[in-house]
């Protein structure tokens, strides 16, 4: 039953696509619901790609043209840490599990990819087992075995060779001192991942980790054949396990990908693989990328952060352009940390005074107004499934409550306000605008801010993320932002609010939140295998952080994405906060 309906939808989509290709006029027939695949493709609508699919189609063929206004840190799955890179890597690599290719929150759900099912934990969630689907092949036709996955994880442990990638496997696997195949070629010494047979993988962890499936979904588990591994040079010729393989690759300039004949769609629940060919240009000019999107010379701006300010003005002012745009949650929360070791912010009442006095609409304006994001009231936004939103410091319109702030200042013993500093990353004009806006609005309650820019590259290492520097220079407020590595409470909160991750030497992602009672609750969440209960614990942690007034929430960021009319099957996925790249197709032949 299900099967026939799916097939019908495919056929209908193909017809719709052909009709569009033939005349392009208003579609008269087959305007069913937006879901099946035969939607009204001729009339674009703003935000159609949010929570639904814009221009749905299953028509294969054509060339997808993408451009990146910067460059990958690396195309090697062991060595990249950009959301767009993780999204894009799914075109040429398959991990054990992966995010569903679906609009909105559904896209943040994990489904098995190389594996037959999600992981099977032991009783205390310290050991996880995955079983590979049979017969999945690399681009050269050789069968992918559990050893290829194990090898990929082993090499990703080597941070001297791959400094950019995530370190979750280094942190959570029970490595017993193993440092990767380049330092220790004996893969059997890597006992944290066992391969009892060609299709089974067993992960042994240091501590309980109930959300381990998210780690199994990291690009680090994309298999790498040991024979083809060239270490740091592997990025020049990555061996594909996904629907596309590299045809040419000029690093720093452009690369092209063509279909991988050894990819079997029947084993893959995620990827649609509609285009025949993908062309990617890198280091393109960002404004030029926008102009080419508008003129139809380009299909996708890979970074997925939205158009530049100049183009944003054009899109919002032009109804025709606006109809082809999506203004969706990008995943980032922009916020300001209140360092509780910097007097007088060591007093909760002084911190609350800051939260109450702040005009959060000014914060929002700094990040581009309503198009740039929603007013945040706490840390985790609606893009994270299971998270709840609540406002403990309400004020009319979000402009702040100066009277209440002064009341808190009295309780703090600073009735006339106080002076502290606010730091931001000098290269980020939006953070500068946020700092200036906060300086203005906090002054209403007598809280004076001295604005201090620091270079972004050393922001965490030497300045805002270095505890003794913060205290010595009175960096009470630190403009910051965070995007979860994966959309759940652990992915978002663990690195930001756990006081135990604060290193005295600097380089911290927790910029000064020290709440002792969170320790036990974070550990509890790590070991809780029931997802609903786990989400509740994380939401509670978020609430405690807000009660402690350790964070001044600013904006749940949104990006204004533009989809050219020829782009099909476009939607913003909750996993990345940008268009899902495995689903895209094009009508341009």
């Amino acid at each position, binding site marked *: 039953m299900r099967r026939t309906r799916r097939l019908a939808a495919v056929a209908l989509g193909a017809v719709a696509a052909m009709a569009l290709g033939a005349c392009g006029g208003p579609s008269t027939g087959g305007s069913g619901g937006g879901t099946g695949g035969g939607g009204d493709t001729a009339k674009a609508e703003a935000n159609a790609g949010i929570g639904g699919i814009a221009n749905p189609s299953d028509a294969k063929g054509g060339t997808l043209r993408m451009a990146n206004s910067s460059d990958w840190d690396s195309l090697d799955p062991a060595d990249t840490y950009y959301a767009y890179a993780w999204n894009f890597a799914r075109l040429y690599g398959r991990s054990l599990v992966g995010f569903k290719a679906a609009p909105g929150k559904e896209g943040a759900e994990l489904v098995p990819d190389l594996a037959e099912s999600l992981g099977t934990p032991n009783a205390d969630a310290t050991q996880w087992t995955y079983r590979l689907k049979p017969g999945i092949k690399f681009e050269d036709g050789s069968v992918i075995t559990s050893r290829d996955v194990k090898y990929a994880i082993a090499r990703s442990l080597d941070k001297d060779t791959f400094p950019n990638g995530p370190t979750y496997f280094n942190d959570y696997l029970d490595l017993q001192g193993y440092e990767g195949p380049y330092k220790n070629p004996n893969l059997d010494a890597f006992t944290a991942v066992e391969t009892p047979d060609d299709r089974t993988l067993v992960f042994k962890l240091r501590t309980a980790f109930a959300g381990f499936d998210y780690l199994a979904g990291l690009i680090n588990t994309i298999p790498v054949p040991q024979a083809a591994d060239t270490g740091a040079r592997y990025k020049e010729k990555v061996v594909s396990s996904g629907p596309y393989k590299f045809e040419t690759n000029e690093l720093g300039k452009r690369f092209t990908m063509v279909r991988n004949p050894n990819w079997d769609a029947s084993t893959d629940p995620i990827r649609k693989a509609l285009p025949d060919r993908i062309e990617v240009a890198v280091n393109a000019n960002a*404004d030029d990328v926008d102009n080419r999107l508008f003129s139809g010379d380009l299909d996708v701006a890979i970074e997925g952060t939205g158009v530049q*300010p*100049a183009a*944003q*003005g054009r899109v*919002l*002012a032009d109804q025709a352009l606006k109809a082809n745009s999506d203004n969706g949650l990008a995943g980032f929360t922009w916020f300001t940390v209140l360092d509780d070791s910097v007097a007088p912010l060591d007093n909760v009442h002084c911190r609350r005074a800051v939260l109450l006095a702040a005009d959060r*609409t*000014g914060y929002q*304006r*700094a990040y*581009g*107004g*309503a*198009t740039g994001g929603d007013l945040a009231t706490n840390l985790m936004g609606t893009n994270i499934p299971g998270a709840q939103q609540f406002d403990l410091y309400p004020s009319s319109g979000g402009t702040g409550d100066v009277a209440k702030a002064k009341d808190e200042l009295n309780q703090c013993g600073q009735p006339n306000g106080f002076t502290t*500093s606010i730091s931001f990353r*000098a*290269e980020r*004009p939006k953070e*500068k*605008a946020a*700092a*200036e*806006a906060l*300086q*203005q609005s906090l002054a209403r309650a007598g809280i004076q801010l*001295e*604005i*201090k*820019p620091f*270079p972004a590259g050393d922001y965490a290492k030497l300045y805002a993320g270095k505890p003794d520097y913060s205290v010595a*220079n009175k960096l009470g407020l630190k403009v910051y932002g965070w995007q979860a590595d994966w959309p759940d409470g652990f992915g978002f909160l663990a690195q930001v609010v756990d006081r135990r991750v604060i290193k005295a030497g600097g380089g911290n992602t927790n910029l000064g939140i020290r709440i002792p009672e969170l320790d036990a609750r974070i550990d509890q969440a790590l070991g809780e295998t029931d997802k609903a209960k786990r989400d509740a614990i994380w939401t509670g942690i978020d609430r405690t952080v807000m009660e402690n007034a350790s964070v001044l929430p600013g904006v749940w960021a949104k990006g204004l994405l533009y989809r050219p009319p020829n782009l099909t099957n476009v939607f913003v996925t909750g996993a990345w906060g940008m268009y899902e790249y495995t689903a895209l197709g094009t009508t341009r032949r």
Partner: protein
Amino acid sequence: MPPPGYCPAVTAPLDVPETTAQAVAPVLVPGEAVAGRSPWRIAWTRLRRDKVALAGGVVVVLLVLVALAAPLIVGLLGHPPQEFHYEKIDPDLQVPTGSFGGVSGDFLFGAEPVNGRDLFSRVVYGSRISLLIAFLATLLSALLGTFFGVVAGYFGGWVDTAISRTMDVFLAFPLLLFAIALAGVVPDRAFGLSGDALRITLIVFIVGFVNWPYVGRIVRGQALSLREREFVDAARSMGASNRRILLTEMLPNLVAPILVYTTLLIPTNILFEAALSFLGVGVRPPTPTWGGMLSDATRWYQIAPHFMLFPGLAIFITVLAFNLFGDGLRDALDPRSR
């Protein structure tokens, strides 16, 4: 006797001490009172005929007046430079409403994107930082350059060698990199200063300290030739101390070149301060600086070009005015250098 290859760069009238200048017999014109003309008077006469330089000078004077009277001007014609005006900003696009960035009688140069601050006020206040830093840094350069230049030129020998090589080292210094590195390292409170005062002091020190050889080399060259002149020989033979010769015989004759090169150094330093602010290592926000405004404006140049235009024009006009005035001054004091 001057050494071979001797070539005085300063004009003859200036070389002659003032007392003797009056003794030069003027051509008598019947019916006209005989008036002695000092070298400065001659230079002033030349300068007055140079309309372009004069225009530059007038603009320079106006700019200084604007900087000094900034609070008064802004009080009359603008809004406080830090005051936000969200009502001037389109909430969707973040740029000012109204034509060309909201230029109007109320906001003479329009409003800044995002926060709606009065650009006119910020440009006017920006002149204070630019001129203050440029003047102080140039003063520092002139003082150091004159001192070391005259000492090197007068004493010669190993003193000259040491100072000249030091100047070479300074001239080879990557000034911008040095400034960026130093501005990043210096803490928030140092030398009993903090905030803007510390940043201004720091930039003045960096710029002034690194630029002094430009003045120093000129002064050294002049001093080298001056010390061979008869009046210096005369002073020496009469038993004048080195100190006296330096201060009363040499220095007065060096005033003209110092003045010229100092005037020409000011616009360079204005540009340098703007570059530092543009790179984010100058005076910190929200204190308005022209370079800082230009830096902010780069994001908006396509949809709010006024944001870039006005601070850019301010830098352009200031630098041009100082250069024209400085060139005119040089022509007036030293016509042979044309």
